[in-house]
């Protein structure tokens, strides 16, 4: 079965943030993965919103990946590109927030375009943060701090 998402093999302690990074752009996906790994996160990547939903257990085909009881798969943060073919990052955000299991998972939206109405729309629908692309290491460090503070 074609996976369409990429999972990190190393199992670290559960204090480490497990991030699901969603982006249809191959280079951006590789970069965001490295940015997060260098910032000590466990990373799973998905090349589109549908694969992301499947990984989260919200897919149509209901793959029974038990994200609730299996700590290794539990996602602490979703970071997604806004502009993606098929389902957008905004639509993915809404699906996550509509899910009783996953609505508490923070969702960060990334976009290369700085459009205030877009930003407000995402924040109003429950996005934790909106980040301007291209991402820098300092952006990810700030994000981590923000999230760790929210958790404790």
């Amino acid at each position: 079965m074609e996976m369409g998402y990429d999972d990190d093999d190393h199992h670290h302690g559960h204090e480490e943030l497990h991030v699901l990074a969603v982006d249809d752009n191959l280079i951006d996906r590789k970069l965001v993965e490295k940015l997060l790994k260098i910032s000590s996160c466990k990373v799973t990547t998905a090349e589109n919103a549908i694969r992301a939903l499947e990984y989260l257990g919200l897919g149509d085909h209901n793959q029974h990946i038990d994200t609730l009881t299996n700590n290794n798969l539990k996602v602490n943060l979703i970071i997604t590109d806004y502009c993606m073919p098929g389902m957008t990052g905004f639509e993915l955000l809404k699906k996550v927030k509509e899910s009783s299991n996953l609505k508490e998972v923070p969702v960060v939206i990334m976009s290369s375009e700085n459009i205030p109405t877009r930003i407000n729309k995402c924040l109003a629908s429950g996005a934790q943060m909106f980040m301007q692309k291209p991402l820098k290491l300092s952006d990810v460090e700030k994000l981590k701090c923000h999230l760790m503070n929210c958790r404790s």
Partner: protein
Amino acid sequence: MELGQMQKSLQDYTKSLFVEGILDSQFLQLPQLQDESNSDFVSQVVSLFFQDSDRILNDLSLSLDQKVVDFEKVDPYVHQLKGSSSSIGAQRVKNACVVFRSFCEQKNVEACHRCLQQVKQEYYLVKNRLETLFKLEQQIVASGGMISAMDLGF
């Protein structure tokens, strides 16, 4: 050529790419992501960018050569290339893509053809310069020298 001279050449060459606007500060993010676990990360990502861009440019050429141009197909390609070039700091490619997108919006076929040529030109330029940059680095390493992220930053 002696090691110190090679390192100076590399620094000067790198600097020129920024001065000419071929690269922007985003390129300097890449060495910060490189560590012992992934000591050729920068060249890997750049190679990936080249492969991906070659493919996109090919698809763009084909799409624009159709009798009836489908802009719903053309624009996403340009968007992709704009995104990846921006992410690795290939400033002039990115800027050329921005112009290209505005003509896609206007559905101006002729202007889009010109834009594609411009994007290709900028792309081959940055590709050529980065390949030279990596060769210079390889020569230094082969001579027993070391490259640090500091050599690229200023």
